[in-house]
């Protein structure tokens, strides 16, 4: 039995090229060709791949047309790659573990692979070989996630802010948030907090109408801009992104507010440039101030930490590949000559 994968991904092709391939293949069409025993198409925004098994060797040239959209440029085959046997298993394990992703360690891909597998199974195009391969891949993904820190830490400003809020308050459902200034990043952060259970979101903007429209978007309520300081007595999280030239919040202004909340922390996310909150505020007890640079720096730290985990993830993957090959090698490995057929195998 031959096991193989042919595809295109963000490593080998630009988004313009990838979109010409997305969704070009259907498992049933591949099976109808007769050469294939099993087929599975994985199509995401970052990759289009076909996994298959066959009794006879299927040449790459036979597979490529299945990937094309009707308007695909038939001359850009150099962006395609092929993996056979063990390397196919290794590639899939890397994909599901997030090692091959554009954002290292992202977990969305696992859901996408599961969905593709379920679709192929429902259509009857995924048989015993792909079943074993994908079930093993899901185990690998689980082990990599639980044994390494590859998925740890947020890698975008909004998610870093949410992660920090969770680290300070735990359950966010009881938290009150004040959004000062209705900027785009504020909106994204407020939406992210809203999706994590925050229900009390207040929006204060110089233009009340704009504040009102953002409040509606995040299921919150608008507060007149003149009243924002009064809100600080009650809130737990402040997201600030006004276009003020001078800091709006200083230690002198914040100090009396903190007296009424001695054991409640205050998390301030200052996304404005120039900054809305004086940096000295971070020195105050119980106040955690993060500006756009510190949030971005944490996102980069997280990404660096994830990259450090790649070798640990690769080790787990290698163990599973070896075990998979040992168990199913006779049925899945391709002839040695096939392994050299990868069109683009260096990622």
């Amino acid at each position: 039995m031959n096991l193989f994968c042919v595809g295109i991904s963000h490593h080998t092709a630009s988004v313009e090229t990838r979109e010409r391939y997305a969704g070009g293949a259907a498992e049933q069409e591949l099976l109808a060709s007769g050469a294939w025993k099993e087929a599975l198409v994985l199509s995401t925004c970052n990759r289009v791949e076909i996994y298959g098994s066959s009794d006879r060797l299927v040449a790459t040239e036979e597979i490529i047309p299945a990937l094309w959209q009707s308007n695909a440029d038939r001359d850009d085959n150099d962006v395609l790659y092929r993996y056979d046997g063990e390397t196919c298993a290794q590639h899939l394990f890397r994909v599901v573990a997030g090692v091959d992703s554009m954002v290292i360690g992202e977990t969305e891909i696992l859901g996408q692979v599961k969905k593709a597998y379920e679709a192929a199974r429902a259509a009857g195009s995924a048989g015993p070989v792909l079943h074993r391969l994908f079930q093993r891949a899901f185990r690998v993904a689980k082990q990599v996630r639980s044994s390494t820190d590859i998925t740890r830490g947020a890698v975008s400003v909004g998610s870093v802010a949410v992660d920090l809020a969770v680290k300070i308050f735990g359950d966010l459902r009881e938290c009150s948030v004040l959004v000062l200034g209705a900027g785009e990043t504020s909106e994204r952060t407020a939406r992210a907090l809203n999706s994590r259970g925050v229900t009390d979101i207040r929006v204060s903007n110089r233009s009340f109408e704009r504040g009102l429209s953002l409040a509606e978007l995040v299921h919150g309520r608008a507060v007149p801009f003149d009243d924002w300081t009064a809100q600080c007595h009650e809130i737990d999280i402040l997201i600030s992104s006004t276009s003020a030239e001078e800091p709006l919040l200083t230690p002198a202004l914040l100090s009396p507010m903190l007296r009424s909340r001695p054991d409640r922390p205050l998390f301030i996310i200052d996304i404005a440039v120039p900054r809305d909150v004086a940096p000295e505020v971070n020195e105050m007890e119980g106040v955690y101030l993060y500006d756009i640079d510190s949030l971005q720096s944490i996102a980069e730290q997280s990404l660096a930490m994830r990259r450090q985990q790649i070798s640990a993830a690769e080790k787990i993957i290698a163990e599973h590949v070896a075990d998979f090959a040992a168990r199913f090698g006779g049925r899945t490995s391709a002839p040695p000559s096939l392994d050299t057929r990868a069109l683009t195998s260096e990622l």
Partner: protein
Amino acid sequence: MDRQFILLSTLCYLVAVAHTLATLRDGVFRPRRFNFIAIALGFVFQSAFLSIRGHALGRCPITNLFEVFIFLAWSLALIYLLIGPAYRLSLMGAFTAPLVLLIQSFALLAPIDVAQPVRVAVNPWIEFHASISMMAYGAFALACVAGVMYLVQERQLKTHQLHSIFYHLPPLTNLFSALIRLLWLGFALYTAGLLSGFFTGEPLPRVKMICAIAVWIFYGAILQGRHLHRLAPKRIATLCILAFTAAVSVLWAINFVSETRPT
């Protein structure tokens, strides 16, 4: 002979600490089941020691400083094993193991396992007083550990330097709640221990009484400060560490006084 169990127990804690240090060196800090198992095994050996020594003495084995330290370490491990998983404070094991290791190593190395020259009749009030006080010390020790964890977490949040450990520490507010619960638990046990001391029917050494009351006042003041919202969480965490350091010193003093007169 029974000391071998403490040696084995100390080795278990040493393995737990070494494992934590190894994971820290790799840049990945992760509370693993391994740590919990190592501590649980260490606890089993401690229990074996206390059981054998208790049978040999025919009383609660806290007759000399060595036994007191082991009983304290045992209480600490017991409270951790009971409350650590319940409050999702599994990482506390990484902080508890070094503390227990330190206490037991000192107990093993110092010449403090000296048998009482005179064997006295067992007084149940003294047994109760001593054992409940040790349990209180265990709770205070874990409050101290929670305080350290709180300060580590707080510092990382303040400085914006997030180490791998940050992602495994419980949220700041949850950690503070656990710390307060441990303080209340320790305070309640300590109060019971203190009060039972008055029912022993024996004359109370003045220094011992003053030291014990001073510790009680110290912890009471922390809790009162918290109750009146006079102390910020960071200060309470710091005070917990100071209070436990002071309490251990007092424990030493109490035993020093006790050893001058048979109980």
